[in-house]
């Protein structure tokens, strides 16, 4: 397991691994920035805060890249750094986060705008009501395609814990969104389907 960045280590450049001599292997980090930002946005629901967290993650990963073992899962390592930063922030701001969640929950209590169709913001509002551990797992596994093992590595827990959180989170979401097993309700409206058909995942 790669070390997660701590404090006090002098920054060192990591040796290039199967890369041109003049290419910095840390450039690979930049490829993951959009996904990191999307995850931070999904968890915090605060664009300014999300951007701050991603910036902090980038700086930590860049300066502590010598702690990353080449050939192992860079995405998981980066998301671990981001997730740890988010957890630290939540501990400091636990009261503020609870107030935001309550406001979001109140908005969800109103009737959905369209009968038979669910807006993305309703899905997001429902996600906001979940315990953060379940919300994180649904983002990683459900939304972003992390494997169970990858998510377990990122969250620092067993694969069984990830499966359990995913299952409970999905059941809770289904209940909040009024979905029932066996229903074939079309959850996506025409505009969303158009987006799906034209954009690769």
């Amino acid at each position: 397991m790669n070390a997660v960045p701590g404090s006090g280590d002098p920054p060192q450049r990591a040796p290039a691994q199967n890369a041109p001599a003049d290419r910095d292997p840390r450039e690979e980090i930049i490829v993951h920035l959009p996904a990191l930002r999307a995850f931070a946005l999904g968890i915090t629901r605060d664009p300014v805060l999300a951007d701050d967290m991603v910036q902090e993650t980038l700086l930590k990963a860049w300066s502590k890249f010598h702690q990353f073992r080449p050939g192992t899962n860079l995405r998981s390592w980066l998301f671990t750094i981001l997730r740890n930063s988010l957890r630290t922030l939540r501990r400091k701001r636990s009261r503020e986060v609870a107030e935001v969640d309550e406001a979001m929950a109140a908005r969800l209590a109103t009737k959905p705008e369209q009968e038979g169709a669910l807006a993305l913001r309703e899905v997001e509002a429902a996600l906001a009501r979940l315990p953060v551990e379940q919300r994180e797992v649904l983002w990683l596994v459900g939304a972003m395609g992390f494997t169970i093992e990858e998510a377990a590595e990122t969250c620092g827990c067993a694969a069984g814990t990830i499966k359990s959180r995913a299952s409970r989170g999905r059941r809770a979401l289904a209940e909040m969104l009024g979905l029932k097993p066996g229903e074939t309700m079309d959850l996506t409206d025409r505009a969303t389907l158009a987006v799906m058909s034209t954009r690769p995942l």
Partner: protein
Amino acid sequence: MIDPALQLQIDENLRLLYRSKLESELPESLQDLVRQLLNEGKPG
């Protein structure tokens, strides 16, 4: 275990939500930081 079809529906909406977050560009501050880091240590 959740109903498999229900799981598919839930995950489909989660993916759509994720895509909607990916659509916005990285903010200028983050782009500036990337440029700064990439230029670190380069001559000139």
